[in-house]
């Protein structure tokens, strides 16, 4: 199996700590971590913080997808919008979005709002670019065919341009998905009172390292599985791609 080395790594981890080769203070054993994680799960800390994180991430990403996607397609479709917003988008592109963490806190404090805003702002760009490039790649002949078959200009946008744009848009959303996790964890590590990132920081500062490792692994693998799931979904949805 492809992931066998990971399994072996886990076994090595457990063995090395159990044999005392590495101090338990630095690296809790895998079994300790699992136990601590299970406790967190049972006592609800994982669920509570997880729900907060999911809520923020989900909402921010949703806004980013809807508004960013719309924006990208509009920019691709109407030259005037493109001319106006295009250079702006290009100028803001190299700006690292995590740098906005202190600003969002300044504006909206330590709660949900600042995280949602951060994720919305950060994730909008890859979605917009994906939608834009996807819409631009729509072949002229497809549009003409639809028009000659009776579709109105607006109808064409929905029937032809949007589906054509989907593959690239899907790619942009995939990037945004990964970015959501990063921005979420980053901001929660630094300026939050709940959420996965906060929980990690809290446990770390309290010296409860086995639980800390547990949450770190949970978050890391959540990011991995979210990406895999998304890919599967997209492969299914976009099966018509050649």
């Amino acid at each position, binding site marked *: 199996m492809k992931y066998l080395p990971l399994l072996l790594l886990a076994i090595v981890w457990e063995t090395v700590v159990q044999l005392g080769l590495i101090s338990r203070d630095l690296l809790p054993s895998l079994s300790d971590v699992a136990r601590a994680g299970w406790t967190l799960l049972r006592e609800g800390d994982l669920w509570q913080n997880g729900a907060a994180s999911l809520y923020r991430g989900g909402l921010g990403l949703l806004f980013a997808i809807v508004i960013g996607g719309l924006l990208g397609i509009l920019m691709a479709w109407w030259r005037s919008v493109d001319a106006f917003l295009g250079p702006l988008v290009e100028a803001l592109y190299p*700006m690292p979005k995590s*740098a906005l963490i202190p600003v969002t806190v*300044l504006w909206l404090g330590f709660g949900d709002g600042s995280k949602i805003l951060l994720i919305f702002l950060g994730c909008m760009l890859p979605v917009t670019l994906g939608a834009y490039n996807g819409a631009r790649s729509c072949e002229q002949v497809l549009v003409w065919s639809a028009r000659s078959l009776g579709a109105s200009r607006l109808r064409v946008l929905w029937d032809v341009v949007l589906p054509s744009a989907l593959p690239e848009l899907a790619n942009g959303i995939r990037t945004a998905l990964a970015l959501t996790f990063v921005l979420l964890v980053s901001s929660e*590590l630094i300026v939050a009172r709940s959420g996965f990132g906060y929980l*990690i920081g809290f446990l770390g500062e309290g010296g409860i390292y086995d639980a800390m490792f547990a949450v770190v692994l949970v978050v890391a693998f959540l*990011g991995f599985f979210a990406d895999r799931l998304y890919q599967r979904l997209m492969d299914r949805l976009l099966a018509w791609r050649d």
Partner: protein
Amino acid sequence: MARLILPWISILGLAIAWELFARSGAVTPFMLPTLTTVLERMWIDAASGELWQNLGLTLYRALTGFAVAAIAGIGLGFAVVYSRAARWLLDPLISVGFPMPKIAFLPVITLWLGFHDLSKISMVVFDAIFPVVTATIAATLAVERELLWSARNLGASERELLHEVVFPAALPQIMTGLQVSLPIALIVCIVAEMKMGGIGLGGAMITASRFADSPGVFAGIVEIAIAGYVLVRLMALVRRRLLAWHPETAAPATV
């Protein structure tokens, strides 16, 4: 010509819009200080030396991490392509690690390596190495068979093949990986600094936000944006120099 000026025009436009909007009274100076206030603040920090201290430290950490990530990343990429053992071990690590929010490991790295530069640089390496490795692997696998065969046909040994043919052929794509990795290095460093506090652009910004020092926070944003922009331009220049022979940079054919 227009293409060169256009981005500057929109930045200028953005700057003017910022200033006007901030002065308009629609938002408080706290929420959005005027651009002039922010620039003034940057000037003061520059004069006092604080700006250079923060910038210098952040750049030192980010670029050191980037350099390590670049060299190790290229090395690991080659290892994966040429060694079956390396491929078996590293492939799952790479594909699992890539979509992970690696910043979640920051507290673990802090636990192991303390609160000084080493932990920040390590965090940078951990994040920045992935795009380099994947780019190197893809680039090396994509080297055209006929280039390798031609070189062997002309008498090249296996070792000569690697550094005389494979490396230059793979370089364009590897460079792209490096160009993706550099901004990542910068932002990861800043986030780590925000978490750990202290000196550095990130630390300064989070301190400013804790003291409700709005101009300080916005000054930080502008400084980071400029630093990021300069680094990206420098990389593009390096790319143009190194890859002068590449079709995308070469002059069009005359015949």
